[in-house]
């Protein structure tokens, strides 16, 4: 009983150390950019899974990130709100919008919840796209940059500007992940899972379904808003199109490719797919500063063929869809099941042989 818990925690610890050390060791902007993308996607995938645990699939995760990003960005652009206020404000705004819009949908189940959130997410982004103050179709520009806000801290810690940014984003992401990890691994998680299995039964034991659904949605939106807010300051220019259905669908895929069975699943999914998607850009930009000829040649080749990286992503998706029903975290189970099936077959064959003698 005890061991799996420890194993789960160990892999989390290793991931945490890697994500702390590597961006320092890999002393280049393109690497750190990749790590920022991964960390942002991790929060997205885990935050989505929190809603999935309660039995629903949200199609507005990208939009909630957008609410956080635009809130933080606009507060900073128009009201000169400092980042340590604008970022939390983005998280709070995303939570409020999530709760208000989630209220009518929290009572809906499965397909209707998905439909409701899908329409709502799309509606939010349409409004932002047409709002002149939000920059309209051009997006919101000249958001005060995280790099300059953190330049003092970066100097003191002897970090490069982009590294300081990474560590702030990493810390905020860690904060979100710890909250969601705790929620899943206490009675709140049990109650959410119970709700997913039978709302009827859950209500009969005194669980208020609306309250718990909104608790999951609210926490999820808070995390999306927080990470969206900090990212907007890092990017300094944001566009509504980055928070549309495509983003939402990718978040869903990170989660499913990693597997929803365990907390670490979406983390793995976000890592693998973000790397696959970003590898060509990364290598191309690294090749500029490398002396290794074959590496440069390889990177150039990859860069020239970067139009084909979607094929690589597609291949990963197909492998998971056909071979890994439980996603990446389901691999041990899949192997075990296959081994058991093979052993059974062997046994059956031996019995058949014995019978024919």
């Amino acid at each position: 009983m005890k061991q799996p818990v420890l194993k789960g925690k160990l892999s989390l610890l290793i991931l945490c150390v890697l994500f702390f050390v590597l961006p320092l060791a890999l002393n280049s902007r393109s690497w750190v950019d990749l790590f920022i993308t991964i960390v942002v996607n991790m929060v997205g995938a885990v935050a989505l899974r929190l809603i999935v645990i309660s039995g629903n699939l949200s199609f507005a995760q990208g939009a909630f990130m957008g609410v956080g990003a635009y809130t933080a960005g606009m507060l900073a652009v128009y009201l000169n709100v400092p980042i340590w206020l604008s970022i939390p404000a983005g998280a709070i705004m995303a939570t409020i919008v999530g709760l208000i819009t989630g209220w009518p949908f929290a009572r809906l189940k499965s397909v209707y919840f998905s439909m409701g959130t899908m329409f709502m997410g799309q509606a939010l982004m349409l409004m932002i796209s047409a709002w002149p103050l939000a920059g309209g179709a051009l997006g919101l520009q000249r958001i005060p940059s995280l790099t300059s806000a953190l330049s003092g801290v970066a100097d003191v810690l002897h970090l490069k500007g982009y590294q300081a940014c990474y560590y702030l984003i990493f810390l905020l992401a860690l904060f979100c992940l710890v909250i969601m990890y705790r929620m899943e691994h206490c009675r709140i998680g049990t109650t959410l899972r119970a709700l997913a299995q039978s709302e009827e039964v859950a209500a009969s034991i005194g669980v208020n379904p609306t309250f718990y659904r909104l608790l999951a949605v609210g926490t999820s939106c808070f995390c999306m808003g927080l990470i969206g807010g900090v990212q907007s300051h890092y990017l300094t220019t944001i566009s509504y199109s980055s928070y549309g259905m495509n983003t939402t669908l990718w978040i869903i895929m990170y989660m499913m490719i990693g597997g929803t069975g365990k907390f670490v699943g979406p983390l793995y999914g976000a890592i693998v797919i973000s790397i696959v998607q970003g590898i060509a850009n990364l290598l191309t930009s690294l090749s500029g500063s490398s002396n290794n000829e074959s590496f440069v040649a390889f990177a150039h080749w990859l860069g020239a063929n970067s139009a084909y990286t979607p094929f690589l992503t597609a291949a990963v998706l197909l492998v998971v869809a056909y071979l890994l029903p439980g996603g990446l975290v389901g691999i041990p189970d899949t192997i075990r099941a296959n081994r058991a099936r093979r052993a059974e077959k062997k046994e059956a064959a031996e019995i058949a042989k014995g019978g024919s003698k």
Partner: protein
Amino acid sequence: MHLLETSGLTKRFGGLTVMHDLDFHIDEGEIKGFLGPNGAGKSTFFNLITGVLMPTSGHIFYAGNEITKAKPHQVAKMGIGRTFQLNPLFGDFTVFENVTAAYHLRPHSTVPQVFFNSKVYKENEKYIAESADEVLEFLGLTHVRNELAKNLPHGYQKILGVARALATKPKLLLLDEPLGGMNPEEIDFSIKAISKMRDKGITVLVVEHNMQILDILDSVTVISFGEKIFEGTPEGMRQDPTVISTYFGGTV
């Protein structure tokens, strides 16, 4: 004062009246039967009481409070526990987890207490683990404690439904066909367990088609097509001409 009372309770689905003007009561400490032929409206009655369905008209009172419009989780909080005829379970939870999950109300830990792993929460969880094992022991489920609920044989699943309802520490327990699909041994065991609930201070209202249940009932209400056709003792029920002709089809 009755523990539970309904007056003029009516439920219509479109043009179909499935419950008509039902006056009903159950007193504290009773084991009462709520019987009637298939489609009489028994499960509907449970759903009306527990807020799963809203009555078209009429009133429901529990311990002196009107609960006509209360939601299922509020009804549970007030002390009414229930099982379901089709017996849905938390299938991916073990038997033990099904029961511990059901300790949502008594004792209750608030969300912050749970989240921050407070002392209250830890003590509550410790109590819950012990108490859940007692419930499993009481209902003879200890040996399947760590099985997934969905893998249990049907009879055990039914008993697990009762265990879960007991874990909510109800004052009034509504059992919808608790003996359905059980083998004779399980039936004997369950009937004994239900009669022991009275000793624990639980009032029980039971819907059942198996007439063995009559042995432990204090009183009976019989309905047919949503209307009361008999109220009295189990003995009186067996001899009542209306009950015999509408429920037992003329023979006993």
